[in-house]
């Protein structure tokens, strides 16, 4: 992984910069000791590590503004960080950067059930937002699988999804407004607790911009009343093709499940060995969950199982109770843990048109043979968001590199069939150099023009998202 050469001018200014930051932040919020900055050397993409020059942990929007103003004056790159759960290296530091962590900003500022929103500081974790409103029967819909740990700040930066976005959408569909600090320290409110803001949709641009346009310190999030209940059905199939066709038929029939999850044989076998959920012996399985009252759930599951039975399933297992539901979800929820037990793995995140599922899974098997690495698949089938897990051995020389090359081939395949490089994890550094497979130079130029407007000096998270060659002249122009 190539990163820009650290700027010796910036490194030499560390004492002055530290002194300036200590004037605006409490002593314990400015971390400069290499023994401590090491804690920020990577996010959940642990293959790449680099301790930052300094890490700061502001507690207020004003402090964030003060910090950015100083960094702007010094011309120091700033890498914003939520909880550091990015799988794409979105919070990977450079040696000459300041890491700005929002973890200390975790207050709820306003909750309104009439207008159905909550305003939070963005260091709050995803799950704790739901925790604050569920007593009143509400929830915050986007549910990335890291939701126990991941921060709203990172969710906004990466436009995070989750298992239930088939029905509820991803972060951008549930974000009403932000308070954002610009690189020069200016504080701006965009959107708010109402549905449309008039003018250009700057909010839509900020969500998913990977911390490159500003540091979002507060967010207004849409909250929804919880459904009366939810129950899944599990269906096993002889082939991946048939499972794929079944997904299309369910969607076309007009039932809108909240989730359609897919697992293939390697994944089923691994989770069986690990969690013993009692899944059927089959090539692939779907877990389809619907919501509503008991009668409504029965009505929807009747339609779904009727469709499934037309595809000669190995088994149809309809949940009748919360116990049975938990058992159906057990294997799916332990899938990543199970894979981690057997092997190191790299988790990919490409999206494909659902109709291309059989072709892509077939080609993935061929790649697996070519590269000699196993692939297991567990993903959100309803929206085509794949999560192929490539299994490798980190202690074996060259295995990681082979895995990376193979991963790139799979992602290129996703683009080739009409999909994209990343459905919910973000580009970060991981997919940065693949961007030119999905976008032409003019497409990338248009995106970089947006950063030019928000951050003319290219100081915010500068070495991410765009291939270094494309962004080089901009990053140098300080």
């Amino acid at each position: 992984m190539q990163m820009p050469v650290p700027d010796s001018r910036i490194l030499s200014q560390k004492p002055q910069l530290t002194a300036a930051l200590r004037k605006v932040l409490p002593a314990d919020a400015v971390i400069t000791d290499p023994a401590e900055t090491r804690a920020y050397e990577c996010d959940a993409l642990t293959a790449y590590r680099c301790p930052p020059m300094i890490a700061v942990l502001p507690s207020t929007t004003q402090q964030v503004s003060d910090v950015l103003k100083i960094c702007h004056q010094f011309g120091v790159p700033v890498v914003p960080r939520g909880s550091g759960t990015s799988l794409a290296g979105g919070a990977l530091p450079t040696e000459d950067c300041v890491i700005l962590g929002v973890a200390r900003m975790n207050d709820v500022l306003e909750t309104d059930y009439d207008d159905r929103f909550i305003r939070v500081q963005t260091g709050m974790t995803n799950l704790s937002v739901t925790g604050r409103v569920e007593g009143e029967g509400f929830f915050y819909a986007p549910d990335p699988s890291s939701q126990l740990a991941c921060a709203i700040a990172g969710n906004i930066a990466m436009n995070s999804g989750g298992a239930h976005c088939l029905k509820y959408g991803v972060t951008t569909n549930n974000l009403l407004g932000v308070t954002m600090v610009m690189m020069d320290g200016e504080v701006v409110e965009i959107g708010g607790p109402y549905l449309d803001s008039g003018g250009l949709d700057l909010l839509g641009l900020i969500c998913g911009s990977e911390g490159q346009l500003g540091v979002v310190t507060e967010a207004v999030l849409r909250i929804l009343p919880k459904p009366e209940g939810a129950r899944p059905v599990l269906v096993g199939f002889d082939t991946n093709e048939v499972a794929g066709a079944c997904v299309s038929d369910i969607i076309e029939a007009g039932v809108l499940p909240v989730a359609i999850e897919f697992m293939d044989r390697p994944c089923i076998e691994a989770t069986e060995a690990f969690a013993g959920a009692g899944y059927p012996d089959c090539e692939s399985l779907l877990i389809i969950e619907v919501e509503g009252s008991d009668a409504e759930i029965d009505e929807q599951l009747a339609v779904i199982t009727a469709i499934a039975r037309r595809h000669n399933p190995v088994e149809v297992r309809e949940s009748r109770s919360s116990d049975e539901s938990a058992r159906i979800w057990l294997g799916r929820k332990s899938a990543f843990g199970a894979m981690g037990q057997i092997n190191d793995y790299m988790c990919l995140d490409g999206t494909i048109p659902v109709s291309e599922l059989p072709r892509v899974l077939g080609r993935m098997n061929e790649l697996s043979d070519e590269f000699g690495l196993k692939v297991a698949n567990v993903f959100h089938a309803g929206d085509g968001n794949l999560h192929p897990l490539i299994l490798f051995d980190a202690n074996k020389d060259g295995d990681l590199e082979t895995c990376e090359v193979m991963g790139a081939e799979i992602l290129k395949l996703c683009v080739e069939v009409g999909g994209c490089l990343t459905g919910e994890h973000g580009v970060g550094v991981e997919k940065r150099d693949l961007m030119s497979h999905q976008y032409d130079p003019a497409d990338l130029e248009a995106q970089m023009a947006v950063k030019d407007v928000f951050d003319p000096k290219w100081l915010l998270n500068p070495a991410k998202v765009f291939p270094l060659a494309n962004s080089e002249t901009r990053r140098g122009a300080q």
Partner: protein
Amino acid sequence: MIRPENEAQLAEAIRDASGALSIRGGATRGLSPAGAAIETSGLHGVRLYEPGALTLVVGAGTPMDDIDTILGEKNQRLAFEPMDHRALLGTSGVPTIGGVAAANVSGPRRLQVGAARDHMLGVRFVTGTGEIVKNGGRVMKNVTGYDLVKVLAGSYGTLGVLSEVSLKVQAIPEAQATLVLRGQGMSDALADLMRAMSTPYDVSGAAYVSSVNGKTGSERRIRVEGMAGSVAYRAGKLADLLGADAVIEGEDSAALWQELRDVAPFAGRDGAVWKVSTRPSRAAGLSQALVEGGQPHEVIADWSGGLLWLLVPEAGDLGAAAIRAAVAQAGGHATLIRGDLARTGVTRFQSQGPIQDRLAAGLRARFDPRGILNAGLMDMTKTGPGADAARVKDPV
């Protein structure tokens, strides 16, 4: 009038333009500023339709009627229920998907499923320098690079001219029912609507129509859609909770919402029309503040009060000062949808704030450095008549 037949011709026309361009699909939304007209109707047709993946990709000039027909054959629709502006604005012409996307036009179901921008998966467009750019794609989940799709939605052609739009579509539910409750003041009515929205019954429409034109009493409407058994169940639960003077089903229910979607009660009537986005809990207070300030108006509230349509007399500043002051107090935005801008000097859009306006102007300057695309339409840095022409360098 320039009418490109394909994207390459569109790019060429923009590259070769020597002055302001007025971008239009069917010109039905009353937004055509001065300049040489570029009409997108030549960029029509289905590029891809996969009902099993809920995906439709069409040329930007494709008529909305064609889209309804194509989707209808597979029992699908655009979930965000885009408004047809013709009756309200007294325009004719053929509304296109490009216009819907460029103006981010949504309808009553927006409060449940999101706006046009939430259903746009990808775009192709031509910038003010004639560069062809694509962003997003045809899949449901895509975080690859910046989301230019969102900012193109609602950019009214000022960042680029859309040539192709990729959309997420929705199956038409088996059944729908609308609870109608009559005869309440706005404040009590909106309280009911907000209560309905806080239930688990997945309400897909919540609107209030005041005593329109003095002809009928005020009315609340609450819609549920889905499978037949589920609709009956949820309509029943809501009726238990809030009462119901009538439960209207099927096509009659659909007609009620189409009328509301198109703001039909204000069509054909004198007066300016404003669209106000605000917090539902403050909507009644906003209307009350206008009354107390001596600003006459009639009101239709959609999105459980989050969207207000105001009909005001076509006098003075069309109520601009009073309405914008009330909106500033309540929080939100007011946009003039119908009214004489040239005579009154009222701006159509409201400033988003100095930094936001500067960012927006910066984006327009990057995507359209000559300032020729629908020049001045969204410009908050200059106001009033003549702002359009002022931004165009040396119109020939």
